[in-house]
């Protein structure tokens, strides 16, 4: 079943405007639990309470306080809050285009696929082709449902993707932190570590990795739900490792042996 568009807008760059529809590119597969009351197995209710009196405060009487400093809050009315929100718009402004390997992975947040609007799919596919040809991605700014977003406009497999980016204030960069203390590795250790990395070098193959834990938990829930008492594995401790160089040497040997076996 085709997904539903979550929003419609236009990519605006220079004098061009490309109408698009947004679709979430991610699918939530987490296992969702509910909190239940132990004795009744009914879902619980939650209320906001005045901790001094124990009195429940109905939601229409709750006000929002915003932190000015530790322990000090300032109340804002819904009208005042509204003032701080941006004007709604249908324009996704593309400010500039940067090389596609320039954006550090720490910025990417949520991906959306863009679909062409029926009225102008030619521009959509032309833009996707142009981005792939130039190996660049666009820096995008837009307001969606009263929220400001920054994002990266990319082409992937001939289609356009808009990936929201985290705000600068939300990210701690490695450059803000001190280098960890300790003795620098010696040449022998470096050389062996590089060999080991080389032996395990691969293309990124996401299909090689499955959420096996999620699968195990679901199987367990199903078994328990149909009245079985599933057996659980016994947890064991791992062994201690030897000296760094010995361990590296043994690791390289192991990888090579398994490679040879696969080839044979």
């Amino acid at each position, binding site marked *: 079943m085709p997904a539903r568009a979550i929003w419609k807008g236009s990519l605006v760059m220079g004098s061009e405007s490309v109408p698009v529809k947004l679709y979430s590119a991610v699918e939530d597969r987490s296992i969702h639990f509910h909190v239940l009351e132990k004795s009744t197995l009914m879902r619980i209710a939650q209320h906001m309470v005045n901790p001094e009196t124990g009195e429940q405060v109905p939601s229409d009487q709750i006000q929002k306080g915003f932190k000015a400093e530790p322990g*000090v809050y300032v109340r804002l009315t819904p009208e005042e809050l509204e003032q701080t929100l941006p004007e709604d718009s249908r324009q996704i402004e593309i400010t500039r285009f940067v090389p596609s390997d320039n954006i550090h992975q720490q910025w990417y947040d949520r*991906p959306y696929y863009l679909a062409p609007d029926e009225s102008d799919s030619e521009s959509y596919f032309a833009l996707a082709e142009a981005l792939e040809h130039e190996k660049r991605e666009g820096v995008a700014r837009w307001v969606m449902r009263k929220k400001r977003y920054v994002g990266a406009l990319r082409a992937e497999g001939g289609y356009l993707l808009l990936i929201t980016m*985290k705000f600068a204030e*939300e990210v701690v960069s490695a450059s803000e932190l001190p280098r*960890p203390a300790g003795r620098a590795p010696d040449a022998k250790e470096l050389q062996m570590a590089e060999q080991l990395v080389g032996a395990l070098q691969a*293309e*990124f193959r996401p299909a090689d990795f499955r*959420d096996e834990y999620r699968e195990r938990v679901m199987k367990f829930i199903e078994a328990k739900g149909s009245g079985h008492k599933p057996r659980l594995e016994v947890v064991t401790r*791992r062994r201690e490792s030897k000296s760094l160089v010995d361990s590296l040497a043994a690791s390289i040997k*192991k990888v090579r042996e398994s490679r040879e076996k696969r080839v044979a």
Partner: protein
Amino acid sequence: MPEDVDNVEKESSPGPFWSGTISFGLVSIPVGLFPANRSSRVHARALGPEGVPLGRRYYSSKTDRELPPKEMVRGYEIEKDRYVLVTDEELDRLAPKKSRDIDLRQFVDVNQIPPIYFERGYFLAPEGDSTKAYLLLAAILEKTQRAGIATFVMRGKEYLIAITAENGILRAETMRFMDEIRSPGDIGLPEKVKAPAERTRHFIQIIQKHASPELSQNELRDETSAELLKLVRQKQRRKQDVVVTNEKEGSNEGAPDLVAILKQSLEGRTGQRPKHSLAGTRHAARRPHRLRTHVAKRARR
């Protein structure tokens, strides 16, 4: 156990929120995990009509009696109103010891990972008596510009991560699993059409005209939060609608200084673990699983 309670706990924790081991071949590297992301939003609080900060409490839907944590359990709804109960211990035992290690299985060129996979960032700080193996892995990842790929189970969830190094520090990005990402076909995107060459050339010209060598952090400012904070400060100066609570810095409500905590973990380690690290480890082991847990939102008055 309800989500909100957990979040408060996470914000207040001074140590790593998880401690574990990276396996690099047969080499074991003990590390602590710290979030590299924080909320940029101005911290908000629910206040009662007289300005009293409110707390969230949990009640029985049947009797309206307030429930202590030990009277709450976790259940999965297999059909309408039928739940399978799952305990912390069961979830723990479903994750065998080896699944909790970050076992680096592949080393890939970090630029080859499609950005659609990246989710959240973390820093890994060295733990234990020796930083030797940690520094070696960081040095080699930085030199080769590779990312070590692994999966591991942390507090009730399995993660796919890419470990890279920067400034001598190991960092990890959690990634989505492949089945969490939709394809154009899943969404029902239309068949590709070949655009007229002149249209494509036109867009290439626009791209070249607005080309820039790099992303600027100035473009990533959170303007909404900045405006909100400005308004809050204005009203505070006018002494308008100000509520002073008796919360102290370092209590659950004070946002921790992430950078300060990380600095402490990364520098000046003289073979002795800082106290907070040990405490954090024990605490993490006892803490309930952070699974998405829903609390019925229907208010009963």
